């Protein structure tokens, strides 16, 4: 099997889907310039009508993607950096997420918005956002957040074939990671299905995007200390595969959720609430969230580096939930 990078996986998924279905087309800023390598060879293969450079006009072209989808096209919009969705928030929320519902199912909006999570590289507060949690709170938007090249390709292809709008959040920290990907144009990863990235008995770690690799590294370290960690990668946040998470927590009795988003109302918060409501009886320790604190992302590298989840912060959280003594806690709470 060929080894491909995360960005090559993006490129291949788009290329294959455009080749397969003439209704698929791409829009975005600087698309034909191929800024990051996700559209290598596209203009030559598909022409500039289907590989469409846009002005810097997010509300315009994201709304246009919705209109084109409503008349039967299947746009893929490269929004590039995730914060660039903000100028188009009304189009995204009032039009993209709601049209199917408002019009009683007459409208279908098969479109994909690709948004990179561009944090951890000194781009400061306006370019470093991880805004998927606020969009998880908008019904009508599916949200995927792949953690490796294989899932990136398979999920993106499923997203293009899906009849609903899908937001694809791509962690830029993963762009250069490589792995073997089957040379199969119909290789798909279904939306809405989590995967167990590592099996374990003592604690469940649910992790997103680049935090999956950090959690796996922390799990390997903890194994040396005799702690068996199970790592779950939801891969899709909407619809969330609650059962896979709950099954794991019912087995391990402990949960750490790792999410590079800001803490308040993070995806981690939602997953923690889900487990508290539906698997409370299985819990043997408080649920811990490893997230980014509720401050803005600073430019200065040493400041920025300490804010995001890291292998050591994840390991510390795991040790705390494993070392937690339920009996002690109840006695001290009663005292």
């Amino acid at each position: 099997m060929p080894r491909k990078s995360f960005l090559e996986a993006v490129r291949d998924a788009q290329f294959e889907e455009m080749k397969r279905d003439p209704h698929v087309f791409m829009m975005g800023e600087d698309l034909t310039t191929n800024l990051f390598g996700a559209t290598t060879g596209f203009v030559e293969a598909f022409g500039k009508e289907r590989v469409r450079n846009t002005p810097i006009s997010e509300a315009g072209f994201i709304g246009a993607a919705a209109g084109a989808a409503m008349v039967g096209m299947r746009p893929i919009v490269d929004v590039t950096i995730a914060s660039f969705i903000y100028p188009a928030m009304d189009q995204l929320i009032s039009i993209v997420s709601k049209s199917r519902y408002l019009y009683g199912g007459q409208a279908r909006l098969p479109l994909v918005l690709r948004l990179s999570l561009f944090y951890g590289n000194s781009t400061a507060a306006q370019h470093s956002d991880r805004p998927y949690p606020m969009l998880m709170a908008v019904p009508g938007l599916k949200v995927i957040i792949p953690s490796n090249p294989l899932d990136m390709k398979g999920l993106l292809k499923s997203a293009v074939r899906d009849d609903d709008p899908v937001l694809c959040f791509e962690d830029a920290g993963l762009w250069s990671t490589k792995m073997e990907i089957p040379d199969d144009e119909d290789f798909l990863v279904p939306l809405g299905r989590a995967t167990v990235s590592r099996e374990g008995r003592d604690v469940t770690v649910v992790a997103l995007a680049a935090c999956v690799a950090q959690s796996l590294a922390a799990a390997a370290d903890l194994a040396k200390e005799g702690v068996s960690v199970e790592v779950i990668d939801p891969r899709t946040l909407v619809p969330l595969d609650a059962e896979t998470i709950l099954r794991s927590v019912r087995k391990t009795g402990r949960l750490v959720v790792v999410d590079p988003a800001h803490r308040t109302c993070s995806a981690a918060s939602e997953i923690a609430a889900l487990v508290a409501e539906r698997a409370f009886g299985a819990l043997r320790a408080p649920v811990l969230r490893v997230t980014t604190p509720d401050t803005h992302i600073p430019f200065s590298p040493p400041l920025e580096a300490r804010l995001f989840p890291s292998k050591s912060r994840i390991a510390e959280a795991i040790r705390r939930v494993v070392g937690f003594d339920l009996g002690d806690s109840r006695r001290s709470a009663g005292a």
Partner: protein
Amino acid sequence: MAHFDGELWREIYRRMVRIRTFEDEASRLASKGEIPGALHTAAGQEGEIVGACMALRPDDYMVGNHRSHGHPIGKGAALRPLMAELFGKQTGVCHGKGGSMHLADFSVGSLGETSIVGSGMPVAVGAALGSKLKGNDRVTLCFFGDGASNEGTFHESLNLAAIWSLPVIFLCENNGYGATTPASTVMSVANVADRAKAYAIPGAIVDGQDAIAVYERVLQAVDRARRGEGPTLVEAKTYRYADHAVNLGPGFAIDRGHELAQWRRRDPIALFRARMIEAAIEEEELARIEAEVAASVADAVEFARSSPFPSYEEAFDDVFGERVPLPQSPLACG
């Protein structure tokens, strides 16, 4: 005087009367609480609505706004599902999900009315882009108001349509007010059409009370769009008789006494009726059209009244293609 086309003129008249009668009845029912929510009527604007719609083919697309009823009626939508939608009934054209501000009838090319001012304009651009990419010659008519022309989406939409030569007609229904604010106090140009220059596209002003004038100017824009020559901005000068909306509270009522009386003297339906009589259409025939329309509106109201409300489960349909899970209990997260 415009070339007389009896069949076209009769249909224009029928659709204008249909909008007026439908909305008069809907206003009455909303005032007494039988129709829920706010109701924004277009009485006074029927000339520009129907004139523009009649310049389209049945398979052309249309996008509109919160002043929503006239557009699908102008495009030829059936009245029963529209009225049932205003009642929030299951048989409504949107199954009771959209209501008065969000009518849509895809069967006649009505891709939906949107209630955030200016939000439909990029959608219209996208529908036109879809036609271009598919290689068909369907055009898109985009209704928007004077208020929307101050939104950023106006600029983005006209720019995109212009640079891509898209088959879209931007039809500004300038009724003089954004809610209660006079348009002239929030614009630095006298006409919305003047803004076309910024995109190097044609900008035209028409008398919105003259359905035929609107029809003829929009038809030119439609022909240009079908030829692949790009968008046109047409501004129809018109007026709405009613306050911003029924059921939004007394704060929306403003005194427009003299101005309102002046515009009522140029009522688009009355003007056109007189013109048809001048063109030797029998008054009895017009009265027959009016009676037929009144009967069809009464039938639509009866249909809406006797239709069931949607079931609770339907609140969970059409969020996605597959139904979203219903809460398992009042305490469960689903």
